[in-house]
């Protein structure tokens, strides 16, 4: 089981919450910025297997978040009472250990034009740029959830020395590939989009291809670390990615954990 830096809230009893007749959420509670609950990924994995095997009639999606997971329903065919009872029972039972996570070593380049908030992070933390970037690359992140945008990974936990709030004014356009940090987490923007995280580098790794059989590179539960690349290598990788000639499998981590 990956270490999520759990708190004493781990072990809190799960509660089944309802979104009218459209969804059920199993929540382990917890305030914003509470560490993720390791039970979520194990339960989500089991539920996704059940879904794939056709044993969750009326369920369209199993969506893990940080301390909760949501079953999205087809209201016409879902038996909410029986699903809620199954969710509740699963939350009570011990969660079997998850399979060994897939490991990734994603390239990152910290050149100033790709890391527009690095100076602000240094100023706020009192660390040198090399300490910030090395501290970030030393983190062994778990993909806690995908959300906000297709393929957008929430990675945690972040080195506590680097924990900062989001920027007061979000940017209207964050370039695709930007790597951001905020609070106890790190993210990668798979698409150009608005965003408020502190940008400390950019990764050329393709994260989402809508046309592929498996569109996502990362999935919840994966283990991720970052590896520094110099600008010429970054430019080559980015050019290959833009031509669709970069297989994300190239970034599977061969190094022992």
């Amino acid at each position, binding site marked *: 089981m990956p270490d999520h830096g759990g708190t004493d809230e781990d072990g809190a009893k799960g509660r089944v*919450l*309802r*979104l*009218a007749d459209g*969804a059920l959420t199993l*929540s382990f509670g917890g305030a914003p910025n509470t560490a993720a609950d390791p039970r979520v990924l194990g339960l989500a994995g089991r539920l*996704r297997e059940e879904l794939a095997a056709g044993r969750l009639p009326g369920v369209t999606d199993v969506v893990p978040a*940080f301390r909760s997971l949501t079953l999205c329903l087809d209201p016409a065919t879902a038996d909410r009472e029986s699903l809620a009872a199954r969710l509740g029972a699963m939350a009570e039972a011990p969660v079997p250990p998850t399979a060994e996570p897939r490991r990734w070593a994603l390239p990152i380049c910290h050149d100033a034009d790709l890391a527009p908030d690095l100076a602000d992070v240094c100023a706020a933390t009192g660390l040198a740029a090399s300490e910030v970037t090395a501290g970030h690359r030393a983190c062994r992140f778990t993909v806690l959830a995908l959300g906000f945008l*297709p393929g957008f990974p929430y990675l945690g936990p972040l080195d506590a020395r680097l924990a900062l709030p989001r920027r007061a004014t979000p940017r209207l356009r964050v370039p695709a590939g930007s790597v951001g940090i905020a609070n106890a987490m790190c993210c990668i923007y798979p698409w150009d989009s608005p965003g408020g995280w502190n940008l400390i580098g950019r990764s050329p790794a393709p994260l989402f291809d809508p046309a592929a059989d498996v569109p996502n590179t990362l999935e919840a539960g994966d283990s991720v670390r970052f590896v520094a690349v110099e600008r010429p290598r970054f430019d080559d990788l980015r050019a290959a990615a833009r031509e669709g000639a970069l297989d994300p499998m190239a970034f599977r981590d061969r190094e022992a954990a």
Partner: protein
Amino acid sequence: MTGCLKIVDPGPMCTVQDLGRPGFRHLGVPLSGAADGFRLRLLNRLLGNPDGAAGLEFRLKGPIVTAVDAPLRVAVAGDAPADLSRRTADGVERIAIAPWRTITLEPGEFLDSGTLGSLATGYLGVAGGIDVAPVMGSRSTYARAGFGGFRGRPLKAGDPVPAGGAVPDGGERLLPRPPGIESGPLRVLFGPQDDHFSAESLDRFLSAPFTVSDRTDRMGARLDGAPLVHRPDKGPDILSDGLIPGAIQVPGDGRPIILGVDCQTLGGYAKIATVIAADLWRVGQLRPGDPVRFATVTEAEADRLRARVEARLDDLTNHFEGWVGDGLIDERALYAANLIDGVCDARDPTHVPGFLEGLDR
């Protein structure tokens, strides 16, 4: 053989939508799909399509389109007449075409889908459906990430949209009594985070009038009104959890946002209540300035109301009528003119007997 529907003028917002892209929300991929799935399904049935065929969804004003190379059978799900223009020996002839009536658009003819009256969202459907390549099992456009639909974006003038096939056998069809808009409160169940609000705020959520603001799109409808107050010990923020269309977030400013079909999959604001599935189509019909009220129902009532919407859809389907219009200009004009009365009926809820009657009381 696939035909081609060329966009002459897309109007303010026109996208390809079907019934959405379930099954990928764990990857952060929104559901998307028709903002008013009730009308898209009914339109597809009128055109002889499966419920889930893709059509063109438009907001407030519909597109102007023309058929290229081959005729296409089309119809508009709206509440105002469309305008068919065709060249004749004497110049350009214009014919008013009522909504909810199929016509066969010949190459060189133009159809202006018209400006909606009280609806916010309308559909232009084609027999055979809009035939763009599915992405992750759906033809719906998700413009924020640039995939699905036609090249992943809202339509522009000049776009050649692959559509339909051979015009089906059998004559044109019409729906005599089109569905209108419901003006009663949106039906909700409290939760999942109603515990972030004081009892007084929960009461006010149900009693106070809200107004749809102009910051309203497929991601959500933001409401203006007296702000709701979060309990000081809980506040507006939660650790992000799963969202679905219809969930009602209340951020720190106290103004509710009813999430729409393109909503994010995870969100970090307390959700005071969730609109029941039976009323989700009504969220897609909210226009800026519309008054909004909320009323709670039980889960059993939510199930019953949903079944009634399905029964209503089937009942309307059973009342499709044929009309003789193919190729005969005079008859086409005659029938079109006659149906204008039907359009007026659709705008007046009291003239639409049977449509979810009595549910608002």
